[in-house]
């Protein structure tokens, strides 16, 4: 081997190593820069050294992302605007071609309404006030930062996108439904039969695929819309009521972070350590 070539290989090798290491350092810096407290964890923060982001935990399937899109659902606004929640659901149902069958067994749903006691089982239900007694809560996928469904999926058909959204690949899913057993929020639906049988094929949204039978689906916080700079469909449907606030939880200057700073919000089943990205004011 002539000397020049040897030198070249040496330099190439070293720079490759440096390159690999370099990205690792940058990644580390990036995650370090994102405040871990934005995870709104149930973790005992006081146990970690003051101000130190606590970045450890059990085997995690999903890496931390630099962006973490989240939602605040302000039920006060929904209660003040009757019909608004239904409008959100309708918009989502149409945009995502969600089938409707006339039986509960085949049900597919992404966004829906349910009673407070079902949505927030960990919270006290004794002597609830009238608002909670009377009104329902809008539910959708929690877009967990540590999603158990992603951990369980044997094919990575459900995965965390770079912006923190838990997305679903309908073409890779084998339909084992492990993710449905793993989701502690009941956010996932399975296509027990051909979904087109539950759609009015003359009035479907051609921009979004209908699914085939035998795959799992769920709310993806409109990953397809967010990717091109649009708001999630439900957020858009709320108009300027501010019933839903969408934004990056990792950006301390975002509207959602400011809102979270100023308001007391709750999350569903925070004790499970899934770190939901959906916050509620009930």
């Amino acid at each position, binding site marked *: 081997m002539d000397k020049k070539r040897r030198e070249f290989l040496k330099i190439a090798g070293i720079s490759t190593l440096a390159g690999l290491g370099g990205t690792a350092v940058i990644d580390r810096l990036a995650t370090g820069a994102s405040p871990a407290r934005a995870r709104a964890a149930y973790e005992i923060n006081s146990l970690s050294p003051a101000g130190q982001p606590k970045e450890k935990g059990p085997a995690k399937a999903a890496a931390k992302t630099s962006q973490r899109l989240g939602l605040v659902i302000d039920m006060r606004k929904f209660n003040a605007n009757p019909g608004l929640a239904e409008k959100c659901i309708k918009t989502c149902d149409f945009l995502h071609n969600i089938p409707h069958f006339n039986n509960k067994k*085949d049900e597919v749903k992404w966004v829906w309404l349910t009673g407070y006691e079902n949505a927030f089982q960990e919270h006290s239900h004794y002597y609830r006030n009238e608002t909670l007694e009377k009104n329902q809560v809008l539910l959708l996928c929690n877009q967990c930062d540590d999603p158990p469904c992603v951990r369980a999926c044997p094919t990575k058909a459900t995965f965390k996108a770079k912006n923190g959204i838990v997305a679903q690949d309908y073409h890779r899913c084998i339909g084992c439904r492990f993710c*449905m057993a793993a989701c502690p929020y009941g956010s996932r639906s*399975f296509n027990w*039969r051909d979904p087109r049988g539950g759609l009015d094929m003359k009035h479907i949204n051609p921009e979004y695929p209908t699914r*085939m039978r035998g795959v799992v689906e769920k709310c993806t916080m409109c990953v397809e819309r967010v990717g091109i700079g649009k708001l999630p469909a439900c957020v858009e449907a709320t108009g300027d009521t501010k019933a839903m606030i969408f934004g990056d939880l990792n950006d301390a200057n975002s509207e959602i972070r400011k809102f979270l700073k100023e308001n007391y919000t709750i999350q569903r089943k925070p004790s499970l350590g899934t770190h939901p990205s959906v916050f509620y004011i009930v």
Partner: protein
Amino acid sequence: MFEKALKGNNYYWIWLAFLGTFMAIGAFCYVRQYHYGLGLTGMSRDVSWGIYIAQFTYLVGVAAGGVMLVLPFYIHDYKVFGKITILGEFLAIAALLMCLTFIMVDLGQPLRVMNVILHPTPHSMLFWDMCVLNGYLFLNILCGWVILTAERKQVAPPKWIYPFVYLSIPFAISIHTVTAMLYCGLPGRHFWLSAIIAPRFLASAFAAGPALVVMAALVMKRVANFDPGKKAIDKVVTIIIYATLVNAFFVLLEFFVAFYSNIPGEKHALEYLYFGLVEHGHMYNNLVPFSWAFVVFCIVGVTLLSLPYTRHKNEFWLGAGCFSIFIALWFDKGVDFVLGGFVPSPLGAVVQYYPTLNEIMITIGVWSMGFFILTVLYKIALGVEREIEA
């Protein structure tokens, strides 16, 4: 050696035809399910796994149970088990093939199953389950076949097979441990979220698997003049009794933890399974008969196997005792464990699951397939035995 399975008396062929009929019906029902989707089953959004996965779970135990016949012979040099070790290995093969078939019929998109290998995902327990189940299947086929071939030639098995035999022992433990991990690592499912699930699975496995072997041995004694040896059967029965009692102990511990801690989420599934759950004034208790049948059959089985008269003097009662244990553990694991875990749903709803006729026929079809394979394998093993004696 397959030619041994092609020669048999009328009873043998009638039995195979009987199983074959149910296999055909099952296959037909599966074609229906394949074309319509899993909507033909009783599963729903809230109870998303049904009897397929429940059978899978139970049969993983039956497969792992075979190790109770292999381990004493190879590790402890317990010569008495010499004749039945092969029964344990062949049982594992048949049970594992049933397990894999139950997984396949449960998949929404079965043609995509290779995605599990194309996109290996180590953080998913299902990936590991695939690895250990196929590994254990391979080991049992290899060991069973090589040792039987050696036996037929009346030579000692080749030395290279022993590492595989020893490897199959931890593999047997691993298949049921990893299967338990499918359930016990899921947040928010209180009934499954228990560190005791894996040992409990193993305990019931070490009872159910050997119980099936004893029943098969008793049947073969009658129809094929096969004698496993009184001492061997007696020892296996002792193993079955202890394993059943350990399983019962674990179940009682689950009750203690749930009811003494008084945490509602811990209690719900047990209440639903054993007493029925009341929601909005409606009583949900469709699994209560199965749960108490589990209790009753456990007591009956252990009693029959423990009393000297029924255990030693009368083979009918011995078989009945083993059958009681086998069916009791099926109620516990092949019905209750998986279905109970889905109640109540993550949103606090109580949804009861009833399998459809189509689903039941597919399930019976897969079981028939398993017994068909088991019969053929045992026939081969017996044929070799007969050949040596002749």
